[in-house]
């Protein structure tokens, strides 16, 4: 009897092991990937994405672009409440967008920079006016920029809001003990409460992947994210657990300093596109995936994986060709070029750098690994103090989020210092085009140009690796790597 009661209480709580401790719990200020996992249970957004990256309704039911693409009108879901009992309506949307745009330290300001104003048409209709057409806005609203917090709580709590966040998601905030746990409990007024099957969700940050896995195996956790690649094989044969492998939206790449600083002009790799092509040809992507990622990644050569609608099929992955690489170096008049490869100190990055070094040596490259802590690599990259830089990106649902900030001139993440007016024009046009097929054509052209210039050599797309109790049902494998707790349930 006691055993049954204990099981029943445990069954009502979902315990999820996270790889890091989230940062600030305010969608306006939040900056980390892991924080987005918690927000997915805590804060509903105007839209969400599904497994195929389609934009699907959440707090907004539909959208309607104006003829000139400079305004978009949203119909909102009715009978939605915030966790403090306040009603969600068009005024709340207006408040939230303005808060995202004006709050000091807001990380959403850039994402919503083209939203010039928000008009409340009626309580359930709201219009966003844009200073220029910006189709990726919908994808932004399917992430933190679309998360809605209670205006009343935001006003009354001020800068302490993040310590007691009030949203409208399936679970409401209970407590947070930094580096220990974040506890959420079922929100009984949730608009889709039939899909919420747990009374509580507890997120526990456990950075060590071995310990995270030990917790899953000993039954302390029901679900863990970012399982170590070398643990997957054994987990797949263990009938007590299930494994999800989801190709990420982001990528692992090598950013090359082609114009960030004077160093670009002094280095053969930065100066000559043929040397960069030779460098790429010296690498065996499949080998990298096998050695570094235990085969838990997908081959890639663009900012989106080959399975993505926006992948440019006209720019295919080129295999390793040492002879051609040597010929290109000869043609460029370069012998044994030295490449300083800036590498963060994480074990994955170190392994990757070592394999790249060994592979590139066969074509005549002398790769010198500069291993530095991540904070320092960011500074060095920003100052252009590198030849090549191993950098990964967690990815965004719309391709614009993976390419614009990296390849448009003078953008904050353009560490390569790449600037091509044609690419800029194409990227800007892609932002104005609603039709997917037409938009894809712009990206096809961008891919062809970027692939020729190679400011980033894209290597592969990692798998999000999850492991969970085999009784857990309803797991949605969405490529953004965020765990949807709504819809999850334990099989009886």
């Amino acid at each position: 009897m006691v055993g049954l009661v204990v099981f029943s209480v445990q069954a009502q709580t979902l315990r999820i092991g996270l790889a890091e401790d989230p940062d600030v719990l305010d969608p306006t200020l939040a900056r980390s990937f892991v924080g987005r996992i918690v927000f997915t249970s805590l804060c509903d957004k105007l839209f969400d994405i599904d497994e195929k990256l389609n934009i699907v309704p959440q707090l907004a039911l539909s959208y309607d672009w104006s003829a000139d693409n400079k305004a978009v009108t949203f119909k909102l879901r009715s009978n939605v409440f915030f966790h403090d009992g306040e009603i969600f309506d068009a005024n709340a949307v207006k408040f939230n967008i303005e808060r995202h745009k004006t709050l000091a330290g807001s990380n959403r300001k850039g994402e919503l920079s083209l939203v010039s104003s928000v008009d409340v048409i009626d309580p359930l209709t709201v219009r966003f006016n844009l200073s220029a057409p910006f189709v990726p806005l919908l994808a932004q609203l399917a992430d933190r920029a679309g998360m809605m917090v209670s205006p009343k709580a935001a006003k009354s709590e001020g800068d302490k809001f993040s310590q007691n966040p009030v949203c409208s998601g399936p679970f409401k905030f209970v407590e947070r003990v930094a580096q220990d746990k974040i506890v959420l409990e079922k929100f009984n007024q949730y608009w889709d409460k039939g899909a919420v099957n747990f009374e509580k969700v507890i997120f526990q940050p456990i950075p060590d992947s071995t310990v995270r896995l030990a917790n899953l195996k000993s039954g302390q956790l029901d679900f863990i994210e970012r399982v170590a690649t070398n643990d997957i094989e054994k987990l797949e044969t263990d009938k007590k657990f299930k494994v999800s492998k989801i190709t990420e939206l982001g990528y692992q790449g090598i950013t090359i300093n082609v114009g960030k600083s004077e160093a670009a002009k002094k280095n053969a790799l930065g100066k000559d596109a043929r040397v960069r092509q030779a460098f790429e040809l010296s690498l065996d992507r499949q080998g990298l995936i096998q050695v570094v990622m235990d085969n838990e990644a997908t081959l890639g050569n663009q900012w989106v994986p080959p399975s993505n609608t926006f992948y440019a099929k006209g720019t295919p992955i080129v295999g390793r060709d040492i002879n051609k690489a040597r010929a290109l170096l000869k043609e460029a008049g370069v012998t044994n070029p030295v490449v300083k490869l800036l590498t963060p100190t994480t074990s994955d990055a170190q392994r990757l750098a070592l394999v790249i070094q060994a592979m590139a040596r066969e074509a005549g490259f002398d790769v010198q690994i500069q291993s530095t802590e991540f904070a320092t690599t960011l500074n060095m990259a920003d100052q252009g103090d590198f030849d090549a830089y191993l950098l990964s990106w967690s990815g965004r649902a719309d391709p614009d989020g993976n390419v614009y900030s990296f390849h448009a001139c003078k953008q904050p993440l353009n560490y390569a210092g790449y600037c091509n007016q044609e690419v800029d024009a194409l990227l800007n046009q892609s932002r104005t085009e609603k039709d997917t097929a037409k938009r894809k054509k712009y990206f096809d052209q961008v891919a062809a140009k970027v692939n020729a210039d190679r400011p980033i050599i894209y290597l592969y797309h990692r798998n999000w690796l999850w492991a969970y109790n085999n009784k857990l049902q309803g797991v949605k494998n969405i490529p953004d790597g965020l765990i949807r707790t709504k819809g999850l349930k334990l099989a009886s």
Partner: protein
Amino acid sequence: MFKFLVSRILSIVPTLLLVSMMVFSLQQLMPGDPAKILAGEEQSPEVVAYFRAKLHLDDSLITRYGYWIKDVTSGDFGVSQRTEQPVLQLIGTKLPVTFELATLAMFFALLIGIPAGILSAVYRGSVIDHGVNVVALWGLSTPNFWLGILMILFFSVYLGWLPASGYVSPVDDLWGNLKTMIMPAFVLGNSIAAVIMRHTKSAMLGVLSSDYIRTARAKGLSEKDVIIKHALRNALMPVITLGALELGTLLSGAVLTEQIFSIPGFGKMLVDAVFNRDYLVVQGTVLVTACGYMFANVAADFAYFVVNPRLRR
């Protein structure tokens, strides 16, 4: 004694000031721009500028130190730039956790170290002495992270007796708290137990060969009384000193142990704050740690008074 204690406590103030200057300036030597780390993956220029202004990063080092020390002396340690939680609140929630871990670790260390040291000294050269030496050497040479992982795999995954990691407050569930703390406290106390054992043994050997012990034996006291009442009491002096000094080892060891067992204590907070360049958290944590260290030394001085009657004269 009162005068002595007051003078010892007052001597802490300039030391703390020096520590505050050192931790502040050393942190500035750390490479990387904290504003860029705090700005997250997107690296929005507005957010980077916001953090630069908020942390006064464009001011001189002395001005920045002035801002901080002024706030600290008025009891405001600031907020964590990463989580927006007040630093004092963070310290307040983490300190008892690490304190509990350190106390339990010290308990394990003393529980193992002192009897082992006594046995080793009393049965010098015997199988027991060699056995204790082997165990001590093993304790000294076993890395915390390795022992921790092994214990997790054996006691949590294989036997399922103890939780693999995490922390339960003793206020919520005392038994649950002990279950989460046993493994980390043992791992942390393990290496210190070896050090304590060796010091106890050498102190006991010195004391056991002294005249007053011979006199005690000649008086016909039982061997148990000679060892426990006469020898151990004097031999404990260097062990107490060592205990206070090992507090530093415990706190630094706690950094790794807390990381392995995901215990939300001081050490884990400090490591995370260093990597995230969360300056105010690092500075506050180090300052409080230094405070604790200094008060532990004062406490050791006080313990000398209690244990050694000659100092009370």
